[in-house]
């Protein structure tokens, strides 16, 4: 939606726009650009192509080779052998995870954490951005923003450490619980608390940073729209509903698509740092399970099959979200 202009400027369009061809060079130039072959392009731009060599090698070796390495999901892998496995075993490993009850448990946990992230965490930056936007003092707004971005810069190890600190038996949260007359809760040993802790820490870490793009989108809304709305008798709430929200809708849609794309990849590193066997019933997700199966138990082919399944779901989700939103809302990633 943003770049059709140069593409539409094919020679015919240019000629039609400019009327009669004026000189010889005008007639010759457009066809030449079309016929230009690779040999000529390389001769002219070889220095630019040479700049591409190392980065492209990087992508081929460290991004695309592992993608091809996914064939070991269908081949038996022997440690020390070829990275593409030794012999074909067909869907053996796929069958294995379909019949694996643990797999279905971690699949469910993944879906639940993904859904919670989407439903609870995704709208919060929008709300926070709208709240910040209502502030009149610039200094106040700046200070709140600066503070709210800070957790984004923390390593996930630090975040895990802070979680352990706050949820400890005599940590701040339990002090509040006991002050209110409750009994101290061993948060990190009871599976039913994990989801709240995970979502809570995600909110803490991401909500402020998530407001950046919304705040940028908010500044592009034409102030005249607000005036017009006020003249039509709209109060603050109606202005928010009819002017502000539609104004940032494209941003919301694009970020929503991106979020749907990462639906399955719920915070692997954070879960890995936070969980322990007592929390497996709710905390174990696909990626942590495949980490244990693959790295700890060295069952590489089986873990790859699980990982491939997860990645394909992610890819399907983002492609369909993008297609749907292009049809329905007219905004898309590409």
């Amino acid at each position, binding site marked *: 939606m943003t770049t059709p202009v140069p593409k539409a400027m094919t020679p015919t369009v240019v000629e039609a726009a400019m009327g009669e061809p004026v000189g010889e060079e005008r007639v010759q130039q457009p066809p030449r650009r079309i016929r230009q072959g690779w040999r000529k392009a390389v001769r002219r731009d070889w220095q630019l192509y040479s700049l591409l060599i190392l980065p492209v090698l*990087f992508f081929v070796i460290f991004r695309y080779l592992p993608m091809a390495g*996914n064939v070991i999901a269908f081949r038996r892998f022997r440690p020390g052998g070829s990275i593409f496995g030794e012999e074909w075993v067909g869907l053996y490993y796929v069958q294995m995870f379909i019949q694996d009850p643990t797999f279905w448990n971690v699949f469910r946990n993944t879906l639940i954490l993904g859904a919670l992230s989407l439903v609870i965490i995704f709208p919060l930056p929008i709300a926070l951005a709208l*709240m910040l936007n209502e502030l009149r003092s610039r200094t106040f707004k700046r200070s*709140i923003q600066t503070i709210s971005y800070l957790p984004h810069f923390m*390593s996930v190890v630090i975040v895990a450490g802070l979680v352990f600190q706050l949820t400890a038996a005599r940590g701040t949260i339990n002090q509040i619980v006991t002050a209110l007359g409750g009994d101290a809760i061993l948060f990190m040993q009871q599976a039913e608390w994990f989801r709240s802790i995970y979502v809570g820490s995600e909110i803490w870490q991401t909500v402020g940073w998530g407001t950046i793009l919304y705040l940028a989108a908010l*500044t592009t809304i034409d102030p005249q729209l607000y005036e017009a709305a006020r003249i039509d008798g709209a109060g603050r709430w109606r202005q928010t509903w009819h002017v502000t929200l539609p104004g940032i809708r494209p941003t919301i849609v694009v970020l929503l698509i991106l979020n749907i794309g990462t639906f399955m990849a719920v915070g692997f590193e954070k879960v890995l740092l936070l969980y322990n066997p007592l929390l497996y019933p709710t905390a174990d997700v696909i990626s942590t399970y495949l980490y244990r199966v693959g790295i700890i138990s060295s069952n590489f082919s089986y873990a790859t099959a699980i990982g491939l399944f997860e990645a394909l779901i992610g890819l399907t989700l983002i492609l369909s979200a993008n297609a749907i939103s292009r049809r329905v809302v007219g905004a898309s990633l590409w």
Partner: protein
Amino acid sequence: MTTELPASAPRVERPVGTVIKDTRGYTVFRVVNGTALLLVAALTLYPFINLVAQAFSSEAFIRSGQVNLWPRGFNLTTFDIVTSDPMFWRNYGNTVVYTVVATAIAMVLTTTFAYAISKRHLKGRTVFIGIAVFTMFFNGGLIPNYVLINTLGMKNTLWAIVIPNAISVFNLLVMKSFFENFSTELEEAAEIDGLSTYGKLWRVVLPLSKAVIATMVLFYSVSFWNSWFSAFLYMDRAELYPVTVYLRNLIAAATVVQGAAGSDSAAQIASNVQAVTMLLTVLPIICVYPFIQKYFVSGVMLGAVKQ
């Protein structure tokens, strides 16, 4: 005027004496809104304040749950304990080395790629962009990557950390859109003066791109400083760990004991030791944060212009 925020629009109109006046409901809303935002800020800061308080407190006060906002039993001995562990400094030094080397490699690869794909006339440009962007949505996954790194013999070497994450596609797109907006006249002038592509990039474009380069260096170095997983995965020897893995092991050891045998404290790693280690790990980031924050914000905006 156009850059003014919408929220300030009502103020401009008021002197005209029209009907526009804040209703009482709106005034109430503004007070509530301001208070709520203050609360958000307080909740965001609290874990850090609590961390600092624990770092300076004595273990006994932490254990009995008396340390919240302010240190109790103030002491600096924990700092001595942590900093007298040679492994801590070794790992801290590793983090510095990994961050510097990884950022340097990442910058070279990202800059050259971004510069080449920012040239609209380059044949095959969309293919190269596609090669990079596709990896945002699909990747090989943990195990194939692990097998690859092992096969390449990168395990227990610096390379396992600094190379496999050398290009972040998001950063690449930020740089690309910056280069796309670079003045073509300037580059053409340089070309007429006889500079090759390399010369243009090195002597004209890069010196004028200091802002975006600084931003990218910050993006990369913060993420390499914070990373722990590739080291955790590919390093078997403690003397190769970055400080994040050192910290992770400290926390893991403490929680295992907590979970297994209640709070039999003999083997338990003291909370204040953990707090001090955490504090020392985040210290560099906290120190530069006020200066780098605005670069990050502008970098994100630049990347969001078009993906």
